[in-house]
């Protein structure tokens, strides 16, 4: 297994280098200097800014410098827009994103698996069709609609109608974010600022997940070992939860593992509407303001996590399914 991991890492090195090079080239198609200097830029100030940004050096030199920083895990380069070290910016931004994406992933996965099991259990019946109809309906609604309506009704309209005072733990914040440890322990901050975005994320993703997991379960239903279990007189719940669920875990694990790298990216729309200072908001702001150091650092981190997650997924396969041999 270790040989397999080492080989996979080695194979992915050129992929990683290629991703970084591609992003650096793509960024430099348009000149960012004018975005920072505005309408009154003189040729002299343009040259000064370009020199300060390091854009007057050849691309290969910029690439080499950046790779050197990645290899030494040096994220001290300052953001062009915020003038703070990019490591500091990304380090602060990842936790608010995780505060939403991790609970949302756990909740949506468990809920979707439960619903998919029920749907597969009663497949072909009215219950199954109703659940799938609801899933498709949920999938058909845009993320923006969920966010806008969720914020309006969940954080404004309903509390106003019910007369829930501001500051009450029963009232979701319209926007904003405060950590759970701020001048003392404040667990209510998570409920106030993060729970509504988590609920919206779960509602948004549950349709997709449910349909996928149901399809996995239904496919397992037709396997020989299920037929054997039925023939041996096993009860339907036992077949579903003991035999089928275990074997359906591989595609479920794959699905969850693929999602893991995206936990740190957060949701751009969610974070901008709810003013969560997470990675999504940080990234979109950096892209809009052409903040190359932040975008490049984000790419380097995300690409590494994605590659490592893929390798980890393969390793987990081998652990979960004894038939799988890594070679």
């Amino acid at each position: 297994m270790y040989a397999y991991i080492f080989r996979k890492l080695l194979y992915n090195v050129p992929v990683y280098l290629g991703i970084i090079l591609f992003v650096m080239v793509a960024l430099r198609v348009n000149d960012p200097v004018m975005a920072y200097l505005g309408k009154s830029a003189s040729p002299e100030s343009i040259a000064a800014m370009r020199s300060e940004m390091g854009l007057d050096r050849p691309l290969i030199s910029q690439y080499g410098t950046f790779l050197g920083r990645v290899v030494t895990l040096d994220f001290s380069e300052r953001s062009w827009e915020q003038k703070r070290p990019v490591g500091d910016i990304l380090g602060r931004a990842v936790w608010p994103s995780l505060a939403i994406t991790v609970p949302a992933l756990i909740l949506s996965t468990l809920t979707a698996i439960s619903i998919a099991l029920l749907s597969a259990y009663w497949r072909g019946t009215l219950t199954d069709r109703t659940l799938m109809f609801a899933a498709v309906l949920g999938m058909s609604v845009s993320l923006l609609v969920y966010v806008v309506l969720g914020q309006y009704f969940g954080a404004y309209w309903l509390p106003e109608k019910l007369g829930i005072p501001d500051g009450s733990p029963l009232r979701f914040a319209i926007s904003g974010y405060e950590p759970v440890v701020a001048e003392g322990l404040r667990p209510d901050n998570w409920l106030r600022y993060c729970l509504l975005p988590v609920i919206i994320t779960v509602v948004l993703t549950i349709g997709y997940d449910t349909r996928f997991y149901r399809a996995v379960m239904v496919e397992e239903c037709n396997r020989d070992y299920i037929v054997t279990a039925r023939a041996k007189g096993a009860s339907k719940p036992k077949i579903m939860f003991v035999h089928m669920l275990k074997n359906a875990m591989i595609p479920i694990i794959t699905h969850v593992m693929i999602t893991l790298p995206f936990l740190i990216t957060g949701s751009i729309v969610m974070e901008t509407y709810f003013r969560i200072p997470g990675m999504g908001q940080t990234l979109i702001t950096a892209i809009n303001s052409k903040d190359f150091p932040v975008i490049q650092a984000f790419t380097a981190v995300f690409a590494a996590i994605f590659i490592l997650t893929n390798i980890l997924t393969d390793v987990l396969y081998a652990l979960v399914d004894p038939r799988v041999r890594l070679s």
Partner: protein
Amino acid sequence: MWGRVVTAAAAAVALAAGAGWLGQAGEAAAQAGGGGGGGAATAGAKKVLQMAMRTDGPKSLDPAAGSTQYDNIACSLMYETLVTFKYNDPKTLEPLLLAEMPTFSADGRTVSFKLKPGVRFHDDACFPGGKGRVVTPDDVFYSIKRIADKRNGLKNWWLLDGVIEGLDAFKDAQNASLDAGKGFDYDAAVAGFKKISETEFTIRLNKPVYRFLYTLAQFQLSVVPREAVEKYGKDFGFKPVGTGPFVLDKWEPKQSLAVNRNPNYHPVLYPAREAWSREDRRRRMDRAAGQAVPLVDRMEFTMFVQDQPMWLEFNAGKLGYIEVPNDFFEQAFDKRTRSLQPALESKGITSHSDVLLDFIFTGFNMEDPVVGGLSPDRRALRQAIHLAVDQNEINEALYQGINVVYDGPIPVGLDGHPEGGKAPFSLTTPDLERAKRLLAEAGWPNGRNAQGEQLTLRYYTSNGLQQQQMSELYKRQIERLGVKLEPVLLDFSTLIENVNNKKAQMFGFAWGSDYPDGENNLALFYGPNESPGSNHYNYKNPAYDKLYEQILSMAPSPERTKIYEQMRDMVIQDTPYIGSMGRTRFYLMAPWILNCRPTERTWSWLKYLDVDESKRSK
């Protein structure tokens, strides 16, 4: 089965909540020692004013590095300039760090200043004993020199380029010294700076320019202490030390900014009752007349990138005032009458509108072989195109009809702006018949030349949604002449590049006045300012240039206004652009905010705001 499902669900919720809390706890650990989280009122704060910033906020709290309106807002809380614009009359300057307005010598080149005695910088660790010291002329010179330091990007050098005697030479010499590794010597002399005493100094200009006073009111020239810049270095943008009415408490970039009252603020009084107009007195703007400011103990700004959360927070009573977003305009106002919606009025919310010093236009490149030049046929061509464009239709379609359409480049409210927006020679009223006649005079009858080729114009603009819609409108309007219009949609940087390189035949742009004087807009047509300067049209008219050079040294007066009007009419006749339009901002104020009459011409008025806690709904 159901029991297991319920148990699993309960475990999932507990696990999820735990994961979320751990995530936030991890963040708190990561931020330990650095200060994190949003702003909350400090213990003992009496009057707290909550405000919105409709963007992700300032990029820096260092005035020399600032450029955006939001940098301006933030810096105006903590720093001050020598002069500023009056709150009761935002067109007029008044002394702020000065004891009195500066005076000009007979030749107009030497400006004499007298600092207000006893003005201190904020208490900060950069000073001995942590006590802020008194401002001196050296601080003024130092702050100006910082604009010339290339380590600040020379972002704001345009304010002082060629203005102060010896400053350009200082800039070149010190930046060369920097490049040679010898450092930037702030103690090196500038010929035009002369310190007379601890409060008096003079600045000598290269030539007499009245706008120098407006330049001194720009936030980028706020006075900063050398000790703080040297102590904090690159982090000075996060640790502001100024003389302003507030001191920084906490700044979470892109999230929030909180400031507390400066306990050592020098005496500044709310404008006297007689300084306000009758209309303003009717609105009780004079209620705090003569009181020392600031009137609140703390201000908390929240940054909103999206409009909905800002709108909802205001309606929930959490913000003092907001600029009304376009998407919510009809929820706030009756579109036809512009009166406040009854639902808002019943809550005690009031409104205010202010026409910005905007000049929204579509320019022609006067060096273009097809549309450029001052010959009668080219002038006729440009006038024809101008007359085909219906700016009122554009206003209705894209701006809810709230913009102001006017003749000439001088915005509403400034000397030289035509009365009622109509100049003696006007092109803003669309006239298709007249346009067709002019097009024929230009040699393009029905949009085709003698060889039968159709006139095709390329219109360069940025690729935002509104600009795309504008280009579609233009296309439809201009094609009524038989002329073809090809929009070229580009990102902003590429658009500027094309305009600066004189490649854009027609281009959609806007200019926001840097100060409330028509000279700022008339400079856009001054020949030597051609691209890559601000004269993006590359308009060159010697008669116009001569008049411009004449007005530079003139203070506001009827004589100067007459020349402004003459220059305005010359530009309208020559038609180097299609325009003009100025945006109108609408604001809503909560019932508990007092003394609020928002304007974007200056931001030093924030210290005059007050709150009436008894009017906040529980």
